[in-house]
């Protein structure tokens, strides 16, 4: 079964601290993985996708196929990073449908 798990509902850190939002997936093939971010009462926005291997707003994520993980990391959190983060998986040949994790709310305190 295809599944995405984000074990932390809430992650609270202080400004300037490192942050890691965990994402594990279950999929037998080669998945496409994404991180989406939702700022307070706004639409979901794409943050990262694993094929791009880029850094957006200081965030990076590496696909680890051995551990079936796609954790999101940032070395120094900022208050404006406070938001809801969703990890999502898109299975091949399924029309781009996304399977989302439950989401992690990141709170960055001053």
């Amino acid at each position, binding site marked *: 079964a295809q599944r995405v798990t984000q074990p932390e509902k809430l992650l609270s850190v202080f400004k300037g601290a490192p942050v890691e939002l965990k994402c594990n997936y279950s999929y037998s093939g080669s998945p496409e993985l994404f991180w989406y971010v939702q700022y307070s009462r*706004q*639409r979901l926005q794409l943050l990262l996708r694993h094929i791009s291997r880029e850094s957006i707003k200081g965030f990076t994520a590496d696909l680890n196929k051995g551990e079936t993980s796609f954790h999101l990391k940032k070395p120094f959190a900022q208050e404006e990073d406070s938001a809801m983060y*969703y990890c999502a998986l*898109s299975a091949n040949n*399924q*029309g*781009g449908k996304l399977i989302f994790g439950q989401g992690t709310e990141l709170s960055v305190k001053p």
Partner: protein
Amino acid sequence: DAGITQSPRYKITETGRQVTLMCHQTWSHSYMFWYRQDLGHGLRLIYYSAAADITDKGEVPDGYVVSRSKTENFPLTLESATRSQTSVYFCASNEQGAGNQPQHFGDGTRLSIL
């Protein structure tokens, strides 16, 4: 992304009533999706459409109906609303339905069923 709009933004209705949520995109994307967002569940796919007149069920389709007579519109109808359908509904689109392409989301419709 102003290219995908949802209406209404907020809706309050009563159990048993029919309600339709609208989604319109200006990109001519082939694929469109409806998700519901609930605490503890993240977003779950209700229905999706690969093109005009082609629709298919997602993870949680019961109680919902969709249509796609035109490429740019993908309305979602709750035929007889129930309290369990109180949620935030997001529409999204994707150019070709390729797995490595991101989806573009609308602002969402916050639906409350009393």
